């Protein structure tokens, strides 16, 4: 069992409640949204609390700053939703433009990263994808000798992989700032020191490179102009029989989302067309929505795909 239930049993106050209280103190109007995002099963509540504990380790004494970032992010998403509803498109379409307006703005990125971290347990679709990743992808991880994550960001997925995978862990990002951020997170969480973090572009020549038998690319494809090219490049870096975990949202406007998947099937078809064999999929609609209602109203759905490299 992945979750340490005995530890949680003796907690005086759940880790999630600490974050929830901090959010509602700063933003009481958010109460009904948070209540809709609550998991219903005991297993997911435990997962939510376990991840909340990790998040609290990362936020340290700066939980309030993270809450501000979360509120800013929610507002930003609503503003982008207005653009999306008016035009049927995301505001930006090119990586260069996004780099200039978003990625190069350190203050904005800091708020955004803070907000994204809290959303892992405050948004039901994000928690659902963590559940899918932990239980269906990582599993016991015993056979994995080399694991790669592209765009590790807040570091939670990489840390969780390190808890079950005995093999070598590697993470790539094109941004040195992001790598520093992930490194600090791993140190704070007490992750193994031999996780390799490198500034690396997945499109760089791979002719003589090492192969990975476990690959993760979560919430990255929607930031790329040509996500299928990224999947093809990753496939070249994978061992035969290797597994990949892909997570990307559909109909999910944000300032730095440039590739619009209009349905979960668009993503699944892209993965298949890139030469992967689909092992399983999981679709998680935004908090408070059923999948049917989210599809009907073009509301955000997080889409997880686990596939094999034949």
């Amino acid at each position, binding site marked *: 069992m992945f979750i340490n239930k005995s530890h949680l049993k003796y907690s005086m106050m759940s880790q999630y409640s600490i974050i929830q209280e901090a959010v509602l103190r700063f933003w009481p109007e958010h109460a*009904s*949204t948070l209540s809709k995002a609550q998991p219903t099963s005991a297993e997911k509540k435990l997962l939510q609390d376990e991840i909340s504990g990790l998040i609290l380790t990362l936020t340290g004494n700066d939980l309030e700053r993270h809450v501000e970032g979360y509120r800013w992010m929610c507002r930003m998403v609503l*503003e982008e939703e*207005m653009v999306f*509803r008016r035009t049927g498109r995301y505001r930006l379409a090119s990586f260069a433009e996004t780099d200039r307006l978003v990625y190069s703005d350190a203050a904005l990125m800091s708020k955004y990263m803070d907000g994204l971290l809290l959303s892992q347990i405050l948004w039901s679709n994000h928690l659902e994808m963590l559940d899918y990743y932990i239980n269906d992808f990582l599993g016991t991880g015993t056979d994995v000798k080399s694991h790669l994550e592209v765009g590790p960001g807040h570091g939670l997925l990489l840390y969780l992989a390190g808890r079950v995978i005995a093999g070598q862990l590697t993470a790539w990002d094109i941004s040195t700032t992001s790598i520093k951020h992930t490194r600090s997170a791993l140190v704070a969480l007490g992750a193994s020191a031999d996780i390799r973090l490198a500034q690396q572009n997945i499109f760089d020549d791979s002719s003589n490179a090492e192969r990975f038998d476990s690959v993760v690319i979560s919430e990255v494809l929607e930031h790329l102009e040509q996500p299928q090219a990224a999947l093809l490049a990753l496939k070249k870096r994978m061992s035969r029989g290797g597994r990949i975990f892909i997570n990307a949202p559909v109909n999910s406007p944000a300032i730095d989302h440039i590739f619009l998947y209009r349905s979960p099937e668009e993503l699944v078809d892209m993965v298949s067309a890139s030469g992967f064999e689909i092992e399983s999929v999981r679709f998680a609609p*935004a908090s408070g929505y059923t999948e049917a209602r989210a599809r009907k*109203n073009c*509301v955000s759905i997080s889409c997880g795909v686990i596939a094999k490299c034949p």
Partner: protein
Amino acid sequence: MSRTTILETIQRTLIEILDNNSLKICEQTRADDVADWDSLNHVRLLISLEPTFNIRFEPEETTDVKNVGELIDLIQKKLR
């Protein structure tokens, strides 16, 4: 345009967005009083009302109004 006409239009649009044929609203109704009238559906409502009234809402207006009456005020202000 009368407040009653605007209220009726808001109600008609909300019924469509929320898929709730029995929905009845008045000027005092707040989003919290109506199931599924969340921030995302509020944005959908505003964007749906834009072509109907030939107006445009600003991003900050997505969270400014406290009830239907204030939304009617806002629409009337934009129609002037």
